């Protein structure tokens, strides 16, 4: 475990068992998260982003899902091996998580106050009063007006943006080392999205919390992240710092993805589009999972799965195009 790493994921593999066949949703994912860093995991719907984060939290729905391999090191412990009660101590306390749907992620039948203080009282032996004060403090911290009044309100009385702030407050209230945010802004309007992103950035700087931001929006990535992991069909296909990804994408998928986003700054005559569709998980048994949609596909792409290799510093790619050049070098 490197010095500043807070979380280290090695060879994580999580599968779903449907009718007794194993469908791997996350397949050998490795990455490091450093202290105070914001990394992004991007990729299209179904590529395994959420499952990765749930695996880290030990919340993969079981059945049908199960983490079948790998390690997740946190505080020198493999989270995949610790007991459920130990894991409960970590959840929400040291690693917190917020979810995509602010509308449905809060329990509609309990007040905001109740839900935030609960998060505190699970982990801290505080009085209700103390917990309440802390909750109000955090509601203010995430920029919610009328924090005291909000404590007694129900989620449905809040707008989407407010709810997402509450979620963030709830996640941060125990001052976790790591915050996993699974598409925290996808359901929100752009104006609200930019508020939330700014908030996360602020919290990251102020509390030095490491953040894993999961998204499919490359714009969001470029706004606040330092490092980017691109996933495709359960595997990491490219990893690099944010500038490199946008300026020198190496994997054909990453390239295609970046090019197919329409930009508000200028009108392209025609958008680039990657042909075909994202494969059904488990449908591709051998070879590169992008092969069917790849412009540069070679015979070997269909036969063997390329490794994720480092091409330049922290820049890693999983593609035979680069493996070759590596090998030649």
């Amino acid at each position: 475990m490197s010095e500043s790493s807070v979380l280290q994921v090695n060879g994580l593999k999580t599968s779903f068992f449907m009718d007794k066949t194993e469908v791997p949703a996350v397949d050998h994912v490795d990455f490091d998260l450093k202290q105070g860093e914001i990394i992004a995991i991007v990729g299209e719907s179904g590529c395994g982003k959420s499952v990765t984060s749930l695996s880290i939290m030990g919340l993969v729905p079981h059945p049908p899902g199960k983490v079948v391999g790998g390690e997740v090191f946190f505080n020198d412990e493999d989270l995949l091996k610790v007991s459920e009660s130990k894991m409960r101590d970590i959840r929400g306390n040291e690693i917190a998580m917020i979810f995509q749907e602010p509308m449905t992620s809060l329990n509609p039948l309990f007040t905001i106050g109740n839900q935030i203080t609960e998060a505190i009282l699970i982990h801290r032996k505080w009085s209700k009063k103390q917990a309440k004060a802390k909750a109000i403090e955090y509601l203010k911290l995430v920029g919610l007006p009328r924090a005291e009044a909000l404590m007694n309100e129900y989620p449905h009385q809040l707008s989407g943006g407010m709810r997402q702030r509450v979620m963030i407050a709830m996640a941060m209230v125990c001052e976790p080392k790591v915050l996993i945010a699974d598409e925290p802004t996808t359901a929100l309007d752009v104006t609200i999205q930019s508020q939330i992103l700014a908030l996360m950035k602020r919290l990251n700087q102020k509390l030095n919390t490491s953040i894993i931001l999961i998204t499919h929006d490359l714009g969001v990535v470029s706004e606040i992240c330092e490092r980017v992991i691109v996933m495709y069909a359960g595997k990491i296909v490219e990893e690099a710092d944010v500038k490199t990804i946008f300026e020198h994408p190496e994997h054909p998928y990453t390239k295609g993805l970046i090019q197919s986003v329409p930009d508000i700054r200028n009108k392209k005559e025609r958008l680039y589009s990657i042909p075909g569709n994202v494969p059904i998980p488990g449908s591709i048994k051998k070879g590169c999972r992008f092969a069917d949609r790849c412009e540069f596909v070679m015979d070997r792409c269909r036969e063997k799965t390329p490794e994720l290799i480092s091409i330049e510093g922290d820049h890693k790619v999983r593609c035979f195009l680069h493996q070759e050049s590596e090998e030649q070098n």
Partner: protein
Amino acid sequence: MFSYTIRRLLMLIPVLFGMTFIVFFMIRAIPGDPAQVILGQLATEEAINNLRAELGLDQPWFTQYFEYLKQLLTLDLGESLRTRTAVSEEIWPYMAATFELSFVALLIAVVVGVNAGIISAWFQKSWFDYTAMVVALVGVSMPIFWLGLMEQWIFSVQLDWLPPSKRENVKNPVETITHFYLIDSLIQGRMDQFVDVVKHLIMPGIALATIPMAIIARITRSSMLEVLRSDYIRTARAKGQKMFWVVYKHSLKNAVIPVLTVIGLQTGLLLGGAILTETIFSWPGIGRYIYNAIEYRDYPVIQSGILIVATIFVLINLIVDLLYAFIDPRIKYN
């Protein structure tokens, strides 16, 4: 909320009105003349005609119907043709008997059903889940008159543990105050009678509870399963909350609405008189009261009995609806 309640109560009027209409004309379509029934087979034509006149049965149906409605408006439920007593006076003991039995049945059904449902959902696909659900299915598939007879045979005839029928030991009767024997025996400090009453309640209670219990267990399970899959449950778990509290605090409250609906409907059915159970266990409840009235063509009793049962049914379901709003802050009736 208040105005919603008022509106619902107003809506009750046409329902009850329609009800009186249907009941009134339907029971008069049943062949057989109450005067004849009352007087028996020895009665002369003349005697029957006299009695008919006395009871107002010789009037055209519509006249009789309007008379009846007029009566109802003054909250007069009429007089039993057979016992010549005001229905409003004589109905209470039957209602109480039914309430008491239904309450016990419902208690059993809810406590067992809800918990079985919760545990099944929590440990989905475990042996408990499978067993509980198969048992529940067998429960709903069981003809309860059969179950009742089997119970009697096993527990009172073979094992002699429980009294086979009725509400109390006739030789040691409960002195009635409220007509709820559990309460009556308690407030008089007669523990022996209380135990006796409880013993009498067990078998019919279970027989009556079987079906609602099974239904409640099933609905609780499916409702819980849905809730357990929801995002906010994941949130609760992500906070580090214990599964027990996730289930019993976060999930149950959310899952309870459909369960409540079912409980409301089932309560209505129970109160509507489980005639078969009441017959088998000689339970002097409202179901048999009305059933007998049908046999005797005791029109006022049938009319008022059904009207009261229906009103209670509708009211219970209204209360259930209002309860939703207490449980779920999103529901606002305006």
